[in-house]
């Protein structure tokens, strides 16, 4: 299942629909890092609200996406991690270190806009 990526101003928004296979995640990763420069985006939001399970591969891929996008000159923020998922993740030691997180899409947009203002 492909993950839809929407463009909203200078921000790309990727919304996970449900549990994704490893292949889907890899595909999303290459798609995002390609699009982010082509569309001249300054920020990427990955919305995982619909995910009720986050395994180590998904967690690692999210971290890779964030780091790769930083190398491509944009910011990433992961939004919508569910409380239960967050707790399960830290228990597994998947803490998404060095990756910005926010409560939901709105917060994520506010975070990115704040960052853009600081840089501009």
């Amino acid at each position, binding site marked *: 299942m492909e993950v839809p990526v929407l463009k909203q101003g200078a921000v790309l928004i990727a919304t996970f629909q449900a549990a994704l296979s490893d292949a889907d995640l890899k595909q999303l990763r290459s798609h995002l890092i390609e699009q982010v420069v082509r569309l001249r985006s300054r920020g990427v939001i990955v919305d995982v609200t619909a995910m009720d399970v986050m395994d180590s591969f998904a967690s690692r891929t999210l971290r890779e996406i964030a780091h790769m996008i930083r190398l491509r000159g944009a910011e990433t923020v992961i939004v919508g991690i569910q*409380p239960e998922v967050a707790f399960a993740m830290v228990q597994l030691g998947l803490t998404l270190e060095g990756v910005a997180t926010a409560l939901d899409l709105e917060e994520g947009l506010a975070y990115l806009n704040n960052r853009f203002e600081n840089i501009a």
Partner: protein
Amino acid sequence: MLRRDVVSRDLEMGAPQDSELVRSEGASELLRELVSHLRQNRTQLREEWTGRISETRLLTAMSNDEIFAEATSVYDSYVEALETGTFEALQAYARNLSERIIPRGVETHEVVGIVLLLRDVLARSLFAKYQSDFMKLNRILDAYEPAANRIANTVAVGFVQERERVIRQQQEAIRELSTPVLQVRERLLILPIIGVIDPQRARQLTEQLLRGIRTNRAKVVVIDITGVAAMDVTVANHLVQTVEASRLLGATVIVTGLSPEIAQTLVTIGVDLGKMNTVGDLQGGIEQAERLLGYKVVGLPEQA
């Protein structure tokens, strides 16, 4: 074929079964004799026992009169258990006694101690009585010892079970003192933790906090642990996990009120607190949270 087999086995088993029967009959007769001896010397033995109890400084939480009263009923239930070979009444009595004496701070070793003392006092009286007839003494002890040990066991287990029940009850009471997640400003939560944190409570706290962050759309959380006296590795790690999980939800956590003891413990056991944002007291924590949220507290100009 089958039947013959059974019959022949019965025949084979015949002899030992009989002797078993004889022996148990003999034992019960001996027990009867024993019980009547204990009944006859009730006053004297009981006094000797209470004397030994105060000598060894057991049950210091109770007055002598109380000890004597309890000793009387323990003695009677003891003899009754020896006589009937049933332990239910004694068990019930032990539970009841434990219920009364646990709140007064009586310890397990004291209860076990007094039961063992009674056992010894009675055994000594048996030694004295059957001194002349060594064989009989031996047989009496054979009958007495298993029953006496079982009684000691029953009382001790009853006491410990009662104690555990009390502890469980108290743990539940603590757990029910729910820890509130409070919103003090728009997007700022405080979580005051008071009392003992065990892994189960820590987990419950985390769940409540994460849910609170979501429902209140919090950006900053101040966890105040001024009221926490001690913390072990498990709980400290859990605290770190809570901080990380909150971050995954986009909230910053500030921990306040780490006591000197906890600070020492955490550093000594080497818990990684690098990810934790700590401030000395709750006031400081709230002030920092307000800075993070962009609030500024300004005093009102004095009213004329």
